[in-house]
Each structure stands twice: as C-alpha cells, then as structure tokens.
C-alpha cells in the first residue's frame, strides 16, 4: 500500500503544489482553503487538467477513469439517498456469499439501522458511505472530514482504518482534529496549496 504523487494545479487564486509519498494510512491537516479537498479530488480522479503524476501501488493511475482507478473519495455528500442501507453497502456488486462480510462491517462500524440512506442522519449516512467503500475493497480510500459529522469520530476512524487495512485498502484522511493523528503512520500539513511538512512518519 503506497501512493506517490507529484501534482501541480491552479484554480482561481489557489495553486496546488503537492509532492508526497505515503506508505501507510496518512492524515492531512491544514486550515480551510489550503487545498486539502482539491488535492484529494485530484487523487480521486474528479479533477482533470493538472500536471504531474499519481502512482498507486507502483501503477500509474494519473489518467485512468474512475471505474479503473481503485480510489474512492468520501465526504459528507457521497451517498446514494434512494438506496437502503444493505443495498448501499453492497452496491454495485452482487452480494452472493458475502452477507456475513456485510454483517461484520456493519457491526464493526456501528451500523445497526436500516431504511433509506437519504432518511438517515448525516452521521449515519457517513458511516454507511465508509462501510460501502470498505466493502468494495478499493486500493485507496480518501476520507474528507468524514469523521467530523460522526459521534465518537476518533473511535469510528480507528475502526475504519483497521477494517480497511485488513482488506488491503490504504486510507488518506483529512481532518481538523489533530488528535486523530495518532491513527496515521504519516501526517502531512497543507498550507496555501502546498504539502509543507511531514509532521510524523
């Protein structure tokens, strides 16, 4: 599990100049407007027109379409409102003999509710979105301040990172809560679009 990125991108007044390499789970902190979300969205493949490269587990994914990238970006709006919780977590795959897997993920992430995801609270939706990403086993999960809307966020983050790691997924998470740095093997700080420091690692 390793990501290596060297990105240069300009949008409006913000210039992203980020070069970093993360082997395990990484945390990115920084003030609002420093470019954290833009950086994650570039890594996820949401944004075109940047210069540089993104290497994930030794494979160049810079120009790959979303479907073949192996990267899932999550924020507070990444959920399917019309789907029920179980279907959401399994989507878009056939569950087959993986029912027990879903039950285990739900148990570990504190998902003990059903119904349409659009009718859930913001925190419940975020838990379902994380469960969906973990069940699908992407190579990289990008969590953009997801835990800020979840009660017991640090504990949820720890459970999520453990589950993701056990299933072969690396996680990069953005948070304003510096206390969550204890779960990361590498901690970066962004300022004015640049990854300026490796705080620990």
């Amino acid at each position: 599990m390793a990501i290596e990125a060297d990105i240069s991108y300009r949008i409006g007044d913000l210039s992203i100049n980020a070069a970093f390499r993360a082997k395990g789970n990484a945390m990115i902190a920084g003030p609002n407007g420093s470019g954290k979300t833009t950086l994650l969205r570039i890594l996820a493949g949401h944004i075109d027109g940047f210069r540089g490269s993104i290497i994930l587990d030794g494979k160049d994914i810079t120009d790959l379409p979303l479907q073949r990238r192996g990267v899932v970006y999550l924020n507070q709006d990444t959920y399917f409102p019309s789907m029920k919780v179980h279907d959401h977590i399994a989507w878009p795959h056939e569950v087959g003999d993986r029912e027990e897997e879903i039950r285990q993920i739900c148990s570990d992430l504190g998902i003990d509710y059903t119904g349409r995801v659009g009718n859930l609270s913001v925190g419940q939706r975020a838990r379902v979105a994380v469960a969906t990403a973990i069940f699908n086993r992407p190579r990289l999960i990008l969590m953009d301040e997801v835990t800020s809307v979840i009660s017991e966020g640090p504990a949820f983050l720890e459970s999520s990172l453990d589950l993701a790691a056990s299933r072969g997924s690396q996680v990069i998470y953005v948070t304003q809560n510096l206390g969550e740095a204890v779960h990361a093997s590498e901690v970066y700080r962004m300022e004015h679009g640049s990854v300026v420091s490796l705080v620990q690692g």
Partner: protein
Amino acid sequence: MKNGRDALWAISVLTIALISVPIALILIYGFAIYHDAAGFGDTVIKAIALTLFTSSVSVAIVFLVFTPLSYELARKTHRGLEAIADIPASIPHPIVGIALLILGSPFTPTGRFLESIGFDFFDTIQGMIIALSFVSAPIYIRSMQSAIFSRNEYPELLAQSLGASRLRTLYSVVLPAMSRQAIASALTSMSRAMSEFGSIAIIAYYVTQYPFSGVSAASVLIYQYYGYFGPGVAITASALMILFSLVILLTGRIMGFGQRGGRMENGN
C-alpha cells in the same frame, strides 16, 4: 424570513394574470356563454382522447430515448450537441412536419427503408407520435439537464469510483434520487406535445387507424372548427381541451411531482 407581499410578489401576481386571463376567458366563454353542443360532441372527445394518447406515448418515448442525452449534457460540455438538441424547438413546427414527411417518403432511401419494415408516418398514429416526440424532446432535455446539473455530483462520482458505468450510474443512482423532477420534466414535455399543431397538421392532419380512424388531434380540430363554424364552437372545444390539460397538470402538482419553489433544498 416570512414571505411578505412586497413589490416582487405584486409583479409575480400581475405576470401570472397576464398568462391566466386569456385562459380564464376561454373557460368562461366556452362553458358559460357559447357552450355549443358541437363543442362537446363525440368528435371533440375523440380528438382530445387522441391528443392525450399520442402525447402520453410520445412522452414515454422521450423519457426512454432522451434521458441519457440529458445526463450527458448536464455533466459534460458539448456545445454542438446542445445546439442540435435545440433545433426542433427553434424551427417553425410545420418544417418539422415537412422533415418527417421527407423522412417517410417512398421517394427517399429512409422512406423506402421505413416502408420496408412497415412503418408509415403519413396520417398515422405513429407519425403523430414521432412528430410530438420530436417537438417535445427539447423541452424534456433542457428541463432534465437543468435538474441534473443542479444536483450534487458526489453520489455519481462515488458510484463510478465503485466501478459503475456512467449509464448504470444514471439509472441506479441519479434517476431514483430525482424521480419527482423527472416526472415534472416529463409532464412539462407532455404539455408541449398536447399543444402541438404545426407539425401534425402536415404529417397527420387526421389519422386513419383504429380506434381513431378519421380523428384529428384536438389542436387541428379546433383550427378546423374555427374555420367552419367561427369562434363559438372553437372556443367551447378549446375550453374542454384546456380543462383536460389543467386536470393532468394539476394532478401532477398535487401529487407532488411539480418542482418545488421556495428556498433551495439540499440537492440530495
């Protein structure tokens, strides 16, 4: 902030009055003053039935055929495609009728092909449906494009990152979450189809097939009545047609299918 009766409210009421006064006059004069028996006759009822049937089928076709295009135009920039999609709305509709006439003419390769598979446009129900689909499609495409564009894109990006194609994302994620807007767009498109005159006056002035043999669409029949009987019967027939249209549109609104006004709601 409470909704106050301010200048904007007054202007809105005035502009609604500009739209509704002519319609109200037709309803009053059609039902209360003229109410000629021919205006309520079997021919008018059949014409309205034909109009409702062909408009309903055409909106179903428009929904099936043009929803993917609406999605594509909402999420990607295609100036050329957008311009082409607007053509049916920007040309005089008799030209649409003539274009379909040429398309289905046995003197053209397309017409010979259509004839070979038993598809005839001229004076047929299918010809009328194709014409209505053609002229109402831009209304649906633009309405859906706008509705999709205003929605949060993150669920779609998540779906594609999980491996879904864009088409599957459309049908599994986008449409289920915006069924009300889709139905509102379809109703708007259907309203446009019900009011069509120019193209069907050329391609299907009347149809020759059961159960509408010899029946014209309501708009064509009202035009005929205006020419034959003068405004009296035409106004009564118009009032009846308007009543049917209003019932359909109001039913959609009351059932909650209409797009909501008021403050901006969460896109999801």
